[in-house]
């Protein structure tokens, strides 16, 4: 059976699984007096959270970035993992004690201000938009390859499917669907990685294969070979970064702080009834995330070696285009690989530099986002593995997108419309508004998916940067500084997000030609500027706090109490 049919079958089966679970969960009624009392076990909840956490960016693009950028790509790995830890340890427990379901509500209550709440809502909507845009591109890549259409059509198809899944299917919020998605995702990620690791290094675990010698008899280490190849082709050394230390630090920190404020993941911590279970499930989530994240560098290196080997040939003299492997042709159709025979020898040659640059010897342009998806094809793995990866990519995108769309639609229809602008709308109108908001969100993000301002992962990185500059300081100050008042918080958020957005827009859209380390502020790239935005936020907030009145006493007491280990009871009971 060919790859396309298998993909249809496997993706279809995975959808059938999600829908089946959703129906089962709906139908499972509880006998009124004999409720077991447990709910979802922490183990399962950990998987579900991991599915929420790992988006198309983690699944599709992270390995791609590492594969192309080598050591530099590692910032995403570190930043995202750190962000999760920060969220699980420093934010979620306090927000839970505070008894607020969303970050805007926390901010609104903590800063006793409708304005602060609305600013926070707008920030949340904006961040979610950016994040969804990244997801849409990922879904588009998957569909374009396996339905053999161009990337644009792929995004359109993905748009429709995501809309039906998230808005009409009502499957979000069912933990076991998410668990299934995680399982599909992790299976799809590990199977090809294990196969390739076995083939290339003889190691079963990709994590150990990554640091082992090649099995081709050369006795060379994988990473040595990569360094060699990179040098040969004019790239920077694979294991050595090209970014400055401060930039790496800034990007990692921005990613970390930014992810910690992501609204759709925080909610997951609140849906577990017992506080103790929340901690256990957070630990499980970390384990489940680690399974994928530790595999990513291995996948990246193997893919890189294989790719260069197949395009340039074992001897480095290039493969004849007419004899190019099937995957090159397949991906060419999506427009994500292009080949221009500049020297007219009929052979492909891949090296550093742009294809459009006549001085460069590079004839092949490869989109980073295809690395994970194309990996099994490059390694000549069986067709079902390729199909499986497609299902995994879709699973990763769906779980995250559905969560984000919900945040957008509830924010627009409930927080903005019902609670602020027009309190007398009926339930029906509210739900309609929510669906419309979701639809608009999908359309806008599809536009960005087709015309991306960067690669999937960097689009997402911007979202994180913005979150880092806005939400995070407000939350942190809200919890840990009882004196912080609303004026300070609002001024901080507005200045933080304005600064960061302006910086990014300037370097990425207005004058992309100036986007070099020399022009950067403190040598920090737009990806890492969120951390500076955060500092700006803190600073402005502190200044404004000095100039304005103190926080009311009862709010101070409340803040005191959520840091009190006894829980919030003390605050509420006299």
């Amino acid at each position, binding site marked *: 059976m060919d790859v396309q049919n298998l993909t249809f079958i496997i993706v279809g089966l995975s959808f059938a699984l999600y829908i089946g679970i959703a129906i089962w969960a*709906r*139908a*499972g*009624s*509880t006998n*009124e*007096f004999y*409720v*077991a*009392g*447990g*709910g979802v076990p922490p183990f399962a909840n950990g998987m579900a959270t991991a599915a929420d956490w790992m988006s198309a960016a983690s699944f599709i693009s992270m390995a791609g970035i590492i594969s192309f950028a080598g050591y530099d790509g590692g910032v995403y790995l570190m930043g995202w993992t750190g962000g999760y830890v920060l969220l699980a340890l420093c934010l979620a427990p306090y927000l*839970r004690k505070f*008894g*607020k*379901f*969303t970050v805007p*509500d926390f901010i609104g209550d903590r800063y006793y201000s409708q304005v602060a709440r609305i600013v926070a809502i707008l920030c949340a909507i904006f961040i979610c938009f950016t994040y969804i845009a990244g997801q849409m591109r990922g879904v588009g890549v998957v569909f374009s390859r396996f339905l053999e259409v161009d990337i644009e059509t792929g995004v359109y198809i993905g748009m429709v499917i995501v809309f039906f899944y*998230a*808005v*009409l*299917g*009502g*499957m*979000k*919020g069912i933990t076991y669907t998410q668990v299934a998605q995680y399982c599909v995702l992790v299976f799809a990620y590990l199977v090809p990685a294990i196969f390739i690791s076995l083939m290339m290094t003889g190691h079963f675990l990709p994590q150990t294969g990554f640091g082992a010698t090649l099995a081709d008899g050369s006795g060379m280490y994988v990473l040595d070979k990569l360094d060699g190849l990179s040098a040969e082709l004019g790239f920077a050394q694979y294991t050595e970064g090209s970014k400055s230390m401060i930039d790496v630090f800034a990007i990692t920190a921005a990613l970390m702080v930014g992810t910690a404020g992501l609204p759709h993941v925080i*909610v997951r911590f*609140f*849906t577990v*009834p*017992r*506080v103790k279970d929340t901690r256990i499930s957070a630990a499980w989530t970390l384990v489940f995330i680690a399974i994928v994240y530790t595999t990513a560098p291995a996948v990246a290196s193997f893919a890189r070696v294989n790719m260069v080997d197949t395009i340039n040939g074992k001897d480095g003299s290039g493969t004849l285009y007419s004899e190019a492997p099937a995957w090159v042709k397949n991906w060419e159709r999506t427009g994500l690989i292009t080949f221009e025979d500049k020297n007219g020898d009929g052979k492909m040659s891949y090296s550093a530099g742009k294809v459009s640059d006549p001085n460069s010897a590079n004839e092949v342009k490869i989109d980073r986002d295809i690395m994970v998806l194309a990996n099994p094809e490059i390694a000549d793995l069986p067709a079902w593995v390729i199909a499986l990866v497609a299902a995994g990519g879709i699973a990763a995108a769906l779980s995250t997108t559905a969560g984000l769309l*919900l*945040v957008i*639609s*509830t924010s627009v*229809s*409930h927080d903005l419309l*019902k609670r602020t602008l027009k*309190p*007398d*709308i*009926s*339930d*029906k109108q*509210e*739900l309609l508004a*929510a*669906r419309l908001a*979701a639809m608009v969100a999908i359309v806008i993000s599809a536009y960005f998916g087709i015309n991306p301002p960067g690669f999937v992962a960097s689009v997402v990185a911007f979202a994180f940067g913005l979150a880092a500059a806005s939400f995070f300081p407000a939350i942190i100050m809200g919890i840990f500084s009882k004196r912080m008042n609303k004026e300070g918080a609002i001024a901080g958020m507005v200045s933080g997000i304005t600064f960061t957005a302006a910086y990014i827009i300037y370097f990425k859209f207005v004058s992309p030609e100036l986007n070099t380390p020399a022009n950067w502020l403190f040598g920090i790239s737009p990806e890492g500027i969120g951390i500076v935005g955060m500092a700006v936020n803190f600073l402005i907030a502190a200044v404004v706090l000095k100039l304005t009145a103190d926080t009311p006493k009862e709010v101070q007491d409340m803040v005191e109490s959520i840091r009190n280990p006894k*829980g*919030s*009871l003390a605050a*509420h*009971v006299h």
Partner: protein
Amino acid sequence: MAAQVQDVVEFSHKQMPFSHLPHGATSYFARHLQVVYLTRENQMQWLQTGGVNLYLVRSGVFDLVSIHGDTIARLTEGDYFGFPSLLTGDKIQSHLQVVTAGLLYVLDQQSFDYLRREYRGFEQHFVRAHANRLLSSQYKTRDQSWSERKISELMSSNIITASAQVSITEAAMKMRHYGVSSLVITDENTLLGIVTDRDLRNRVLASDIAPSTSIQSVMTKNPKSIFENNRAFSALHLMLKHNIHHLPVLDEAYKPLGVITSTDLLRQQKSDPVQLIGKIYKASSVAEVKRYSSDIPELLKQFSNNIEDISVIGKLLSGLTDALTARLVHLYQLEYGQAPCAFSWICFGSQAREEQTLHSDQDNGILLDANITAKQRVYFAHLGATVCEQLVECGIKRCPGNIMASNEACRGTVTQWQSRFVTWIKEPTPKAMLNCKIYFDLRLIDGSKSLYQDLCAALDMIRRDELFFAAMATDINTNSVPIGLFHQFKLEKGNTQHKHLDLKRRGIVIINDLVRLYALNVGIYKANTLERLDALLKFDVLSSNDVYDLKDCWRYLTQLRLKTQIKREGLPSNCIDPKTLTSLEKHQLKEAFHLVRHAQQASAFKFARASL
């Protein structure tokens, strides 16, 4: 050959006709019968399936009720039934109403016929019993209506008379002395006239006549009267026709025997629940309370036939339970001394919501003073245990979840209750959610009002937790309305052959839950669903259209449910078979369910940010 159970043999041999038959008959009977345990809920199963049988009551109490709803006989240990059908081959006409669940011995047709063939005495007994049953049931139906009863059975028996010469003052003093509202004026044994309270007001005080005047000047001369053998109906007719409230009753010799009043006649109608509640509140002993409580099922049946808006029944039953509880608490204090400190008796769940049915069980608790000592607690432990037990004896079932004042956990100070609520709110497990659904519907029944208000205030402070509301909304959404993907009814199959719709669990309960969620969210401390909805109109959480929609749905579903509960056909309670509905009704029902689903989704959306 099967072994025989000695006790069954002994019991059977004591009953007619076996006591007059050879031992072999008893032994045959004992070896061929089956034993079943008959309860209110499973009776349909035994009496309508499996053909005709002879039933012998081994324990329990059952009322045999004809198809018209009249009680033919009360069956207790040693009574038979089912034999008319065995003898005539007709279908079973009557059915059973279980008063107390118990054991029945069941003998099938084949074994019955064998005994009939072999033992003449056996046959004779049942033929005779059948004839008696026919006679008595006909007599009963003739006597059914109270209006057909004789005046002599209804009138107040001892007559208070006075001669025509007494002064108005004397007459009034006599009336006061005997506590009557009318005085019959006689000359020897002849009726001369009648004086009533109203006469004293209208003809004496208002006309400024001296109290020393003789009574004959103000009495109604030659009043309308009635004979003791007349029927109550005639008396009512006379009273209505002449707009009078008192009728002297005469014997055939025209000698006055007594007076019948309109109140006497009304008392016969018995279907005045307000009266029963009043009686309960005045009951002077536990036994009396229990006696009144045994009237409740009968009263409910009569009442439900007479009224238009059936949803009043829930309120009525809750009112009765309130009365029973308050009275029992009071009687306890009379017997064991006043409570040593302030307390309030509170109720939860359906009683608090005033949606009780005959099947509802107890949900109650005690709220105690903050400074209570361990010794004082003992008093309340005993109070709780006693009253709960007495309520069970009054027919209000024990709570399977043990939410009863007899349970240690359900007696506590405001702080103790509050910390119970806090644990549910802070860790909203499914079990905690279930508790919230019951406990957050609470109402004061008896005792200190300020304690109860303290509790409400305490709850108001802890319920401001959005996570709790999110969990509650999620929980509500795990239940679903029985409408399928293609707009069809999704039927359930329970313990009967019929597929059915569960109106309560899949409709009314969801609305109750939703309304509770909204009410708690804005801090409305009422328990009744409709009252909560009315109060919600003042808030923004639900638009007024949504409130009206929910109200209509709730009323519609409740009405439909109670209607079917009264004429149910082997369906579990609260359920209906949509096939029995007209197409308009089906349409309405679907509409109602759709509205409920909408409200449900909206709640998940608003509170839990869950699916759209």
